[in-house]
């Protein structure tokens, strides 16, 4: 099970069952399918570090996902 916490989003927390490590981009696709929401650009953080679309997400991981905005 991986837990994806979408911050500041109507998507809330999404849990996914995965059998093997999968790229984060795939995790996002699965979340979008499950919730039928257009996710857009994101900043994803696991354990205080950014993760990229190619990074593998493992069973038991929690990833916090933020809208990819900037300050002004």
């Amino acid at each position, binding site marked *: 099970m991986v837990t994806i916490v979408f911050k500041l989003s109507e998507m809330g927390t999404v849990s996914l069952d995965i059998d093997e490590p999968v790229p984060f981009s795939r995790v996002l696709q699965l979340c979008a399918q499950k919730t039928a929401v257009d*996710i*857009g650009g994101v*900043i994803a953080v696991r354990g205080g*570090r*950014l993760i990229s679309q190619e990074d593998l997400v493992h069973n038991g991981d929690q990833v916090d996902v933020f*809208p*990819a905005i900037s*300050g*002004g």
Partner: protein
Amino acid sequence: MFSMLRIDTATETVTKETSDSLEYLLGGRSLSSHLVSEEVNPKCDPFGQENKLFFCNGALSGTNVSSSNRLSIGGKSPLTSGIKESNAGGIVATRMAQQGLRCIALEGTPPPNSGWRIVVIGRTGTEFLDGSFLAGKGVYEKSDLLSEKFGSKAGCITIGPAGENLLYASGIACSDPHGVCSRYAGRGGLGAVMGSKKIIALVILDDGDRKPDYVDQEKFNAAAKQIIKLLKENPISSKFTKYGTSAMVDICQALKVLPTQNFRHGVMEGAERINAQALYDTIKERDGEGKTQHACMLPCAIMCSNVYPDKEGHLLCSPIEYETMALMGSNLCLKNLDTIAEMNRIANDVGVDTLDCGAAIGVAMEAGLAEFGDDKAAVAMMEEIRHLTPLGRIIASGCKIAAQVLGVKHAPHVLGQAIPAYEPRGSKGMAMTYLSSPMGADHTFGFTLRDEEDTLTKKGKVDLSKKFQVIGSRMDAMGTCNFVRYSVRNDMTPLLDLIAARYGVEVSGEQFDDMVKKTLRIEHQFNTDAGITIADHRFAETFYVEKQPETGEVIDFTDEETLQAMQW
């Protein structure tokens, strides 16, 4: 042909010039930096006769294109001693377009002991009026008086007591769509440059009758609709609409780069008390004049701005931005949105940059003048600026001067300008942007944070910063709001189509980026000619030797790497 009004503040004479160069066509930072670099002696005294202030609107000003009425202000900065472009929203750019103006230049300085003047530009000409009735008043009162005299729809530009008194962190306030001078070109001390010219207000009347000309109106309208569609469909823009920039509090906390305790830490316990959700919920709960969405200019389809109400629902401050929430909040260990709003309101009223003053108060707290987390002391320090006490003057001179006077080594600035709200040791891409910007530490261009694969390594960050210095400068280059960039980040065609349909000038994406790079090049050249060296493009030494506790990182960039990021 594009027009510039040159106003000589020494002789009170006005001349009009025209040009059809690409710089004039694009306007914005392309024009303001071009003019500063061509006309201002880099070695001049920022408060002397040779400095000039250029107010430029952009290529799409005065049209119905969303978020395209940004005002770029350029001159030599007293804060950095280099070139400065600082821009603001509001209605001034629109009023200039309606008067047929691309640029207004304030030149010269009047003789010593001259009184305050208001410059009023209207359809029938330009006049100089006595401005002494505004002197010493806060920006909110000035704004009311200007509205009373010239109408709430006039585009007004003014300065606060800080600018009148030549304090280095003074900004320039521009009127918003409600006639309140609350939209700031805050950075670099340009308010003090305006003060040095004894111009207390510049007013562009709402009697302009120039309508935009279009080479192909149909194509223009279609392209303008396309921009709205892109903004509406972009999920990031919709987040901006709901939360504005305040969403960065949680992001920076998660990445351990939220400035805390004078940039000693990157995480603040209790940050959720000042995050985007807290801001949104407070505004909703208090209702009244509060607004979670607000447009700083017309038209804007994103509406990222907000209006923060007090407990009774009356307007306390508009807008509150992430940078202020961090520099006047977490950086001082303050966890109360009302305190941040109060400090922001005072900053807007006395006419200072919230970033530089927030950073200066952080330095003052580190020096022991107050405890971190002391709300009352922080507000009192802002009040000292209003009363122009010695401490108030020090704070309103920015964090570099505050650190020098108060004996603090950990001074968070580059080139004299305070570091924006991303702890550089924990975000090496942002660190490289701060180091290599011609403006001093700046976040509005070169924003790498969302695209850094690993924020803690310097590997690849020179190239990443350079990539985003170009992407981030594109909007400034034509007077468009930076937040439009999310919708055209990979393809500038929609905006270039608008330029083609309006002016009949085809500019390719590559040509546009060449123009952006040329602007960066001339800005760096101005700084070199002003005597700024690579040794000035450094953080305080403490950032290189003291590890950020949460990441264990120090700044490890060399001067050579910084120089690479400055080559265009």
